[in-house]
């Protein structure tokens, strides 16, 4: 039987289902009101644990099942109202959820590490004992696999004699639960040789015979080597609605086994006809290794290459493809003999084609779009745990969870977001005491807000904490040589200093947001996604971190610029402004670096023609334009001949088609078929400084 192969597939289903169940448990637990839990939520959490326990045992993952059993017991007490929902309880349950998740994760790779489970198990047990009267009692408190066949069974041979005489007088209603005595007799027959005598048949009066009632009794004699338990088990399900006497058949030599103690009301009340099913757990165990080794690695993780798409989106796509086909057939009419009377029709067809293309593009993009709730979903837990660890009361608000963005961007934005949130919790929000002293409500508010703006998605991390300490930041920046001793900076610039490499205001590295990773990494990660992060902060009121990201990595909103005969594309997000400067506003430094003054700042001029070694229309600053771009907190003016149109460009990898180039992030094909290179602004700035030296020194020298 190919049962094992299919079992493996179904076991995989169990794993996926359990992970979903754990998510339900986690979000449910996080939403529980302490004290008075919502019964609906409580039931959902309980059921998830219950399914993991039951499925775990069925599919041979005994460690998981046993651990889930403890969790379930605790949940059951909470659900029944026997135990108040306490913070400690919820914390322990949340840890248990993590633990089960880990154990399930281990299934794919092989061995399950039960060390943590054991530890949590004893904590769970300790908690269960705290409330006397509620532990280990009640329906579901039994162990997940209590019906392990007793290996000592054979040791009870002294109980077994020739067999048993059975006096069976079922209650009248026995048929109503579909328990047919005949079936029980068949089951007995499988144990040995059975003799059946009907009792009471003579008293039956046809007149008042009710076919749905059982009016008969039976005396049975079973010659078997099976013990009393096996016989009792056959009747177990109906034991309470019948008279049942089981006595040993007296042996010829008088070696009658002593009357067996009747405490053995069987644990497995199997259907009356299924005495064999007590062997079930043993079989399941035997199959376990096959089922365990089967799950495909990685299949349980979240980083799978597949995507779940709403059927509406697919339908819309199919519909658009249909329209495209119509347009194509319409245009193909002009393929043969063409004369100018047809030009109107051709134009219409082309207009339609461009509309189809645009809609198709939007539609395909939409398929890769997922709601940001996928990235937000981890935060309730994270905020709670981190808040607990720091002794801060935090209320998390999620806004705009349905805002959609590209799957790749979504996957990569997770870590930077976590970092920002941790940072806000750690450095932004104050302790309850500090808050009260500052006249603020005890509970701090952390808000994650996502929305679309133009072709971008904006994600804000807002806290109502103490705000950035500007003096401290500036002092630190001066100490690290990031800012000149006399340099004056606007508040905004000071706030954004925290994103500079090698900057950290925490006096000692915190266990939480420290981790040796600074905000500059956050900024770099976001920049890698073509995005931008900035912060606004007001002392005592709070801080707002704003991440601005392109909706997709495949298409870029670009500005075409021209240098001589070449066209380049600059990502619109990185452009601050474009200006024309007079040559007399430009300072030469050390004969090489050129700086121009933009309001209060001196910015280096990056001459593309020089950097790339191409011919420009003119090298005179007055003749061209300066495109002020910003990356990594550094602004420069890129000198170009002219600005051309803005357009969305499809990014083609230069690395895949040619090789990696510093200062160039990719290429695209323009409408006229020519190739234009896309400028990698951070790389470009780096390239410039590599050739012209450190910007700060120059800036300070001029200032």
């Amino acid at each position, binding site marked *: 039987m190919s049962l094992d192969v299919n079992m493996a597939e179904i076991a995989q289903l169990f794993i996926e289902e359990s992970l979903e169940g754990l998510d339900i448990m986690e979000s449910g637990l996080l939403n529980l009101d302490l004290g008075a839990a919502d019964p609906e939520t409580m039931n959902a959490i309980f059921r998830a644990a219950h399914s993991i326990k039951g499925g775990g045992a*069925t599919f041979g993952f005994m460690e998981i099942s046993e651990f889930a059993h403890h969790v379930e017991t605790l949940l059951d007490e909470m659900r029944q109202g026997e135990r108040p929902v306490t913070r400690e309880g919820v914390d322990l349950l949340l840890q248990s959820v993590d633990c089960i998740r880990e154990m399930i994760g281990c299934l794919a790779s092989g061995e399950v590490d039960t060390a943590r489970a054991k530890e949590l198990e004893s904590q769970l047990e300790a908690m269960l004992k705290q409330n006397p009267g509620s532990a280990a009692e009640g329906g579901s408190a039994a162990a997940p696999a209590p019906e392990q066949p007793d290996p000592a069974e054979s040791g009870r041979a002294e109980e077994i004699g020739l067999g048993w005489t059975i006096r069976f007088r079922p209650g009248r209603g026995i048929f109503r639960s579909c328990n047919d005595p005949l079936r029980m007799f068949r089951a007995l027959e499988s144990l040995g040789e059975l003799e059946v005598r009907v009792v009471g048949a003579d008293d039956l009066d046809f007149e008042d015979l009710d076919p749905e009632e059982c009016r008969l009794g039976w005396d049975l004699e079973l010659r078997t080597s099976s013990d009393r338990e096996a016989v009792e088990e056959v009747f177990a399900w109906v034991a309470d609605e019948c008279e049942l006497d089981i006595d040993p058949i007296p042996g010829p030599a008088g070696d009658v086994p002593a009357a067996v103690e009747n405490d053995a009301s069987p644990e497995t009340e199997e259907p009356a006809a*299924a005495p064999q099913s007590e062997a079930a757990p043993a079989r399941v165990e035997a199959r376990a290794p096959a089922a365990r080794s089967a799950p495909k690695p990685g299949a349980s993780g979240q980083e799978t290459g597949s995507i779940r798409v709403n059927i509406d989106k697919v339908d819309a796509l199919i519909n658009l493809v249909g329209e495209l086909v119509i347009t194509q057939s319409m245009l193909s009419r002009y393929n043969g003999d063409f004369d100018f009377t047809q030009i109107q029709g051709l134009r219409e067809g082309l207009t339609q084609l461009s509309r189809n293309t645009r809609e198709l593009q939007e539609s395909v993009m939409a398929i890769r779009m997922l709601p940001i709730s996928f990235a937000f979903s981890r935060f309730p837990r994270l905020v709670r745990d981190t808040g607990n660890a720091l002794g801060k009361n935090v209320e998390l608000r999620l806004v705009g969870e349905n805002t959609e963005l590209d799957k790749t961007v979504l996957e990569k934005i997770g870590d930077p977001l976590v970092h920002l949130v941790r940072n806000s919790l750690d450095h932004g929000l104050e302790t309850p005491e500090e808050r009260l002293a500052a006249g603020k409500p005890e509970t701090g508010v952390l808000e994650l807000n996502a929305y679309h703006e133009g072709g971008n998605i904006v994600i804000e991390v807002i806290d109502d904490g103490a705000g950035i300490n500007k003096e401290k930041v500036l002092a630190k920046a001066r100490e690290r040589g990031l800012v000149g001793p006399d340099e004056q900076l606007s508040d905004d610039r000071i706030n954004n200093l925290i994103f500079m490499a090698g900057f950290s205001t925490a006096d000692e590295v915190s266990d939480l947001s420290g981790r040796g990773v600074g905000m500059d990494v956050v900024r770099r990660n976001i920049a890698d996604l073509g995005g931008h992060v900035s912060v606004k902060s007001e002392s005592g009121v709070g801080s707002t971190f704003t991440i601005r990201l392109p909706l997709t990595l495949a298409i870029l909103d670009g500005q075409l610029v021209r240098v001589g005969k070449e066209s380049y594309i600059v990502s619109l997000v990185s452009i601050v402004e474009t200006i024309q400067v007079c040559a007399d506003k430009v300072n030469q430094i050390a004969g090489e670096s050129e700086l121009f003054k933009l309001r209060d700042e001196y910015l280096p001029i990056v001459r593309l023609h020089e950097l790339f070694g191409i011919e420009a229309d003119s090298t005179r600053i007055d003749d061209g334009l300066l495109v002020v771009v910003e990356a990594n907190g550094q602004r420069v003016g890129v000198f170009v001949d002219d600005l051309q149109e803005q357009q969305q460009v499809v990014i083609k990898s230069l690395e895949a088609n040619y090789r990696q180039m510093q200062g160039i992030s990719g290429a695209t094909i323009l409408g006229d078929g020519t190739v234009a290179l896309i400028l990698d602004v951070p790389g470009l700035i780096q390239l410039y400084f590599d050739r012209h030296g450190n910007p700060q020194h120059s800036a300070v020298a001029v200032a």
Partner: protein
Amino acid sequence: MQSVLAVDDSASIRSLVSYVLEQAGYDVVLAEDGQEALDYARDNTVDLVLTDINMPKLDGIGLIKGLRKLPHYRFVPLLVLTTESGTDKKMEGKAAGATGWIVKPFDPVQLVGTIQKVLS
């Protein structure tokens, strides 16, 4: 072909049960919870019902009670397949009209054997 209505809120248990029973030659109808099963049962008769206890919307006990009220289900065997092994719960199930009680974890081969016996 004899038919079995299998009710469980866990998709993996549903697939396992349906796979095993289909292999054994039964026609399997699946339901995700008691309510769905009961709705199906109103207009359809099966030869046997196999149900979980803990389910959303309508639990196994509720389903058994509901089924026993349907004239065409008065004598259909109703088996319970559950992790619940407490006596109280079993008595509750029995009072509702359950025919038998199989405790998870279960062995697929044994499950088939049990069902075959009940349906013989």
